[in-house]
């Protein structure tokens, strides 16, 4: 979800996040219920059309979908062995369609729109759940992924420079210590920006 948002002005971009989330849920559920290959084939055409309408560059789209193909490379043979070709094909198509649809969503929706949608969804539960806080927690979780990735990279570099590669401890200890310090700093920054309750 991080940094994959691809700004644009297509219908897919402009559709409200809540609507897109609802359609995403409905479509994925439908593909999970459909068992016939022709119907799933038609569904994949629809998904491909969505990518075209959203004008997402092919490379950005593929980067989202390729990882699931690796998984399928292992799962397909097993499925063929136990359930036959057709069952395997249905499973594979379902998975690819689901992942591709999710990719359309993340590529065309800024994170803040998703957060707003989440908060709207949580509003009926406001007696029990503070939607602002849930939204903030989600935003922070998303923000921390690149932060942590950088941190791990820096520690690995430092480890290499000191010639202590290979030891798991020499990676884990500094990463954990620095993550905690980063968390403290982020907390401080949030407080300074007035989000201190």
């Amino acid at each position, binding site marked *: *979800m991080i*940094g994959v*948002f691809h700004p644009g002005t297509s219908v897919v971009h402009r559709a409200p996040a809540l609507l897109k989330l609802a359609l995403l849920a409905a479509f994925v559920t439908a593909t999970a219920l459909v068992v016939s290959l022709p119907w799933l084939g038609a569904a994949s055409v629809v998904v491909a059309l969505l990518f075209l309408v959203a004008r997402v560059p092919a490379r950005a789209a593929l980067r989202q979908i390729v990882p699931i193909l690796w998984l399928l490379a292992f799962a397909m043979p097993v499925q063929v062995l136990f359930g036959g070709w057709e069952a395997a094909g249905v499973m594979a198509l379902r998975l690819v369609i689901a992942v591709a649809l999710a990719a359309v969503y993340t590529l065309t929706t*800024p994170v803040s729109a998703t957060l707003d949608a989440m908060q709207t969804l949580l509003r009926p539960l406001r007696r029990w759940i503070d939607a*602002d806080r849930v939204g903030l927690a989600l935003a922070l979780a998303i*923000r921390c992924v690149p932060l942590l990735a*950088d941190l791990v990279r820096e520690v690995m570099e430092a480890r290499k420079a000191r010639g202590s590669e290979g030891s798991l401890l020499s990676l884990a200890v500094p990463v954990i210590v620095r993550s905690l310090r980063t968390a403290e700093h982020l907390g*401080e920054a949030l407080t300074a*920006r007035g989000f201190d309750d």
Partner: protein
Amino acid sequence: MSGIVFEGVSHDFGAERVVEDVSLDLRERRVGIVGANGSGKSTLARMINGLVAPTAGRVLVDGLDVSREARAVRRRVGFVFTNADNQIVMPTVREDVAFTLRRHRLDRADAATRVDAALARFGLTELADRPAHRLSGGQKQLLALASVLVAEPGIVVADEPTTLLDARNARRIARYFADLDQQLVVVSHQLELLEDFDRVIVMEHGRVVADDVPGVALEAYRTLIS
């Protein structure tokens, strides 16, 4: 009454005293604080918006006691950290600037206008939809500044805002600081950043050892560290 007042302020980190009985009345528009690592200058700056509470004494901002009315004080004081990475909360540039205004409950159009103005002021308009973590160090600090100033605080406190930047970006940030209308308190090791300030305070071992116009105070600091 506007301004920042320290009244007999001390602070201990565990058994260690990092700020020792500091009394200051800061009313000048631009105040610099210098001192060696561990001299207590960052702690002093953090006490202005209540990130650190004094162990003894009290800090007043515009007449408000920081320990008692921390939230009201933070609304007046914008804080810029050394490492902008820790200050950026949202995934994209525009979202991070807009994030500051979430608590202000402005209507959507109003908020968007202010965000756009802040982005334009710091030259970030083109980068608005970029992921914040892919910006350069200088751009990140500009984003941090934009996110602080979009709230229009009356006072801006910056803790070594240019330490992680190269010379060109440091100068750029310094120029933005020079243009601010706000009262400004800057902690820095980069003495040239403070040369045209109105007042410079030198800290050493938690105490104020010099407090004067930059020419005099910075000279005292140079003698101290040489």
